[in-house]
């Protein structure tokens, strides 16, 4: 709970002003805390008099020292290793070396032969000391409940202190269930990780409130410390085939010996990849994005041409997705996807905060808009003021000349 020391309070009212939830009101010179308080601690941090504090009594979860090592869930789906897995091994390697512990990769598949064998080798070449490969026919398709159960069994057996997974459709689907079952803290969508000097606790930084605020989260009293991490934020190590590592193959049935251990109440009837409109814009190096300024669905044809020249993909603002000009998987922003490409070309996008939340971590942002006051120009590295129907064909012609 939030504690006020009236003797220290100087009645400045900063707590009232700083509360993001409007929970503090000054009455008779002292703050009164209302029901909307979430104990976020902002007022405590801002109180220059040190009159506010948070009292926390935490339940201890056994001996934390029993937990050691860094584990990375490596996503292998539809016969492909998600690139975020290698990025996480790169970051996991750094953390493991700082802690002086091992880096283990968790890999699931139907059987250990050929392809999966190669994937395991690749994980070692990218930094893993050990790869736990869990195999069962039931693991050939992704089902939240089953993946959760297998992961929990692995974590209970090997007790890593840190668990990382990609903040992908799959990672974000089942990792939260793992965390709850493990009684572990989980931080979603981290964009940077570090270790606290004093106690080695994992410092997990993520954007909140649509990217308007960054928050660093710690899980002091529970293990493992779990994070999902945004794709394209961490750097993978270069492949080094001289690296040595161990591959341990486990039958899922051995991990989950109960008779119904591998049963799922979910059945995969069909798996459709690359359906019309399905596109993984999060993996693209270049995104050419269209907004209302395109004026109609046909406007995307020019964007497609530019995207093709730059080996990129097309994305869009919410307005044009809602207008039906382009399918939902292309949407960037608060109710769409969060992307971090090398180049983001925003065409006819005004730059509403909801859109910016999804693309502000792009390395280079280029804005093309006929309204020179459009807020997208505030975050752009390069800006062109002009009509898209005029600008795009000229730009395309120029890029073609250089290709």
């Amino acid at each position, binding site marked *: 709970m939030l504690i006020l020391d009236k003797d220290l309070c100087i009645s400045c009212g900063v707590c009232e002003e700083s509360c993001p939830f409007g929970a503090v009101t000054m009455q008779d010179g002292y703050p009164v805390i209302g029901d909307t308080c979430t104990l*976020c601690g902002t007022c405590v941090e801002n109180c220059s008099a040190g009159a506010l504090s948070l009292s926390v009594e935490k339940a201890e979860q056994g001996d934390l020292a029993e937990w050691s090592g860094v584990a990375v869930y490596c996503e292998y789906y539809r016969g492909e290793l998600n690139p975020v897995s290698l990025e996480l091994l790169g970051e996991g390697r750094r953390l493991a070396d700082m802690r002086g512990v091992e880096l283990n990769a968790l890999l699931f598949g139907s059987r250990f032969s050929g392809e999966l064998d190669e994937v395991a080798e690749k994980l070692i070449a990218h930094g893993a000391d050990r790869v736990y490969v869990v195999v069962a026919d039931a693991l050939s398709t992704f089902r939240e409940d089953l993946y959760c159960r297998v992961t929990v069994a692995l974590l209970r057996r090997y007790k890593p202190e840190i668990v990382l997974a990609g903040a992908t459709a799959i990672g974000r689907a089942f990792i939260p269930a793992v965390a*709850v079952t493990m009684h572990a803290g989980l931080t979603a969508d981290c964009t940077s990780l570090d270790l606290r000097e004093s106690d080695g606790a994992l410092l997990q930084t993520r954007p909140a409130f649509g990217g308007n605020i960054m928050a660093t989260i*710690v899980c002091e009293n529970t293990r493992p410390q779990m994070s999902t991490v945004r794709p394209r934020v961490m750097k993978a190590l270069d492949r080094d085939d001289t690296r040595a590592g161990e591959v341990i193959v486990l039958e899922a049935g051995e991990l989950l010996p109960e008779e119904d251990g591998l049963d799922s109440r979910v059945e995969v009837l069909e798996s459709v990849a690359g359906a019309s409109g399905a596109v993984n814009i999060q993996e693209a190096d270049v995104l050419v994005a269209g907004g209302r300024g395109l004026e109609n669905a046909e406007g995307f044809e020019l964007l497609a041409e530019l995207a093709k020249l*730059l080996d990129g993909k097309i994305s869009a603002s919410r307005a044009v997705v809602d207008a039906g000009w382009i399918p939902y998987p292309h949407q960037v922003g608060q109710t769409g996807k969060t992307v971090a490409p090398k*180049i983001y070309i925003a065409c006819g996008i005004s730059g509403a*905060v909801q859109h910016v939340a999804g693309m502000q971590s792009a390395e280079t942002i280029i804005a093309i808009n006929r309204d020179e006051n459009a807020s997208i120009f505030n975050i752009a590295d*390069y800006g062109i003021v002009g009509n898209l129907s005029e600008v795009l064909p000229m730009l395309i012609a120029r890029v073609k000349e250089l290709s």
Partner: protein
Amino acid sequence: MKIIVCIKQVPDVTEVHLDPETNTMTREGVSAIMNPYDQHALEEAVRLREKLGGGEVTALTMGPPQAEGMLRDAVALGADRVVLVSDRAFAGSDTWATSYTLEHAINALGGADLILCGKQAIDGDTAQVGPGMAARLGIPFVTCVQKVREVDESRLVVERMMDDGYDVLAVKLPALLTVVKNINEPRVPSLKGKMKAKKVEIERLNAETIAAKADCIGLPGSPTQVAKVFAPEARGKRIELQGTLEEQLAQLAVKLVELARGQEVR
């Protein structure tokens, strides 16, 4: 079919900013809205009830008493019952403690055949509470559902949106789904709905009535803690391109090709 929809009142996040100089959050006129994804979850629940020709849709929220307004909106949009689970002891809950609290609330309501949630709330963006509840309830769950293809009293066939396509899944009930926004187009409240919303009695639960353990709720029950809050790094200043539009585009084209290839253009 008994359907519980979990909804959350969120600040309109577009209005929340951190002043990089003072490191304080500004909240001038921040309004509270029903989390957009949850609106789609509620709409889907109402549609399923209509499709099945019966059943009950309960909208459940955990939050401060101020969330009552949102619950009335939920009735206007088709919910039959609305429940507020509220207690000062819940303050500071992270997703672990929130999923614990909601699970206990759902059990206190006698459970459900189907639980629907939005994919995530736009203030926290974690997408963790839905899967967390399912794990606690021991029921199957599917995230990011973009379509309910078939429904009967014992199972659903749904489409789960994936990063590069979708999967078609059959799920046995009871189950929990989280939905994305292209699942439906939420209706606007009807006049009749608005009248009903005015009169509806909001059911209330608290830590005691849901039999929550003190060390599992609120800040003490939350494994994660916020260590620091700060403003995101400002982007660099815009590089001005010079000359006529044509000249600017010529410079931009060179830059684009260089960045895309990762090497200089001769």
